[in-house]
């Protein structure tokens, strides 16, 4: 296989857009090093090639991965997701999380959950949960408790408005420090949000006007830089004051 000469040094493609088939690292040039590969990269005998289009990232000293944004979600461990209940079986709920398979949420995976107080979720209930088992073959498993067994904001989300976004926007909203659009909106409006790694966002505020404004601002902010997001949020908030 021909290796493009520009890929000889490992650092050339960091933070650049890569497409499937690009050779990112040549392992014969790097000896006695341990490299960690994240999602989107694959070892092909002696070289590391790209599986998914996106931006190549490096976390020092040796972790490489490809950051991409798409509408469908691939479940991975310890992600917090928003799911919609599809069915109630005897020992778990079937929940849709925009993944290739439906996820199982055991009926006992709640704080203080016993056979006597199983929550009554109807079809269509919105749930905020955590992924506890995710491999590519079996249905993923969710839980509405954190690792220590406490409820910790997991569970049913009542009222509010839920909309779907890409996974990239969801990760941006969850990044720290706080995403600029959320910060700008939070100065004038009081609202609460729940963001799922699977590309679902839930917004709740005291009045429907606020909910609509926050949702529109979030949806528009995907491809804007930090400053542009603040300007966009300010413009929307001014419109609210005029009315």
């Amino acid at each position, binding site marked *: 296989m021909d290796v493009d000469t520009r890929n000889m040094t490992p650092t050339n493609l960091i933070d650049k857009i890569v497409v499937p088939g690009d050779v990112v690292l040549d392992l014969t040039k790097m000896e006695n090093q341990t490299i960690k590969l994240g999602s989107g990269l*694959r*070892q*092909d*005998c002696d070289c590391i090639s790209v599986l998914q289009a996106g931006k190549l990232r490096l976390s020092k000293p040796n972790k490489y991965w490809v950051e991409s944004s798409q509408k469908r979600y691939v479940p991975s461990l310890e992600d917090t997701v928003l799911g919609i209940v599809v069915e109630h079986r005897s020992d778990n709920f079937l929940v849709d999380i925009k993944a290739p398979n439906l996820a*199982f949420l055991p009926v006992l995976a709640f704080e203080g959950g016993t056979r006597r107080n199983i929550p009554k979720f109807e079809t269509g209930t919105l749930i905020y949960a955590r992924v506890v088992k995710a*491999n590519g*073959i*079996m*249905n993923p*498993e969710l839980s509405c408790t954190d690792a220590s067994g406490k409820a910790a904001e997991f569970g049913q989300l009542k009222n509010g408005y839920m909309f779907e976004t890409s996974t990239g926007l969801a990760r941006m909203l969850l990044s720290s420090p706080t995403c600029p659009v959320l910060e700008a909106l939070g100065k004038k409006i009081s609202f609460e949000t729940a963001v799922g790694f699977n590309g679902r966002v839930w917004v709740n505020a005291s009045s429907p006007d606020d909910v609509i404004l926050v949702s529109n601002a979030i949806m528009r902010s995907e491809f804007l830089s930090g400053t542009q997001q603040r300007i966009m949020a300010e413009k929307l908030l001014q419109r609210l004051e005029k009315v």
Partner: protein
Amino acid sequence: MHVRREVIHIHLPRRSTSKCDMVGMVIERDSVGEEGDDVVTPGEFLGEATEFVAGKGAYVSPNGRSVRACLTGRRKVTAAPPGSHDNRSTIEIVGHKAHGAVPQPGSIVIARVTKVMARNASADIMCVDSKAVKEKFSGIIRQQDVRATEIDKVDMYQSFRPGDIVRALVLSLGDARAYYLSTAKNELGVVSAQSISGGTMVPISWTEMQCPLTGQIEQRKVAKVD
């Protein structure tokens, strides 16, 4: 030698030019003998139930009086074993090549894993006792039948993956959907598997296999092959 005659009536359509519209065929058949040259078909009368025991490929008709064939093949009569209190001969049907192997409880099968779930894995049975099957048989390996020790701590994902070839033992005919298989012995389990990178893996212990292309180690329930 007792010869039984069967008379079969064949009706010709009314439009035939011949005056007679009924033709009788007489078939002579030996009902006692060695492997006859005559071929029997399902439903055909083989003998009286008072004189014969229905063996493999034969059954006793619902009225309890005659033994009939249920397979296509040649009739074979074996005399009753001496010392048994029933001195009827056994009639069997042999020589039917149309059927491939069928899994029986206690036979070793080679199967390909199709689906892995939390409590069981389903597999397509391909060979029974080193003979290939001619039709599709489904098998299920339950969590408690994967290995002999610590059966409640078995992780199905670390034992099988879809596409693995496993050697298993048939436990029972199971339910209507699938046979129950077991890999709970040293020589049972994954015989051949492909890694994520596509190379055929080499077993390195009874729980691990290694890919020759990338060196990655994956967990399986490996069979001890001599």
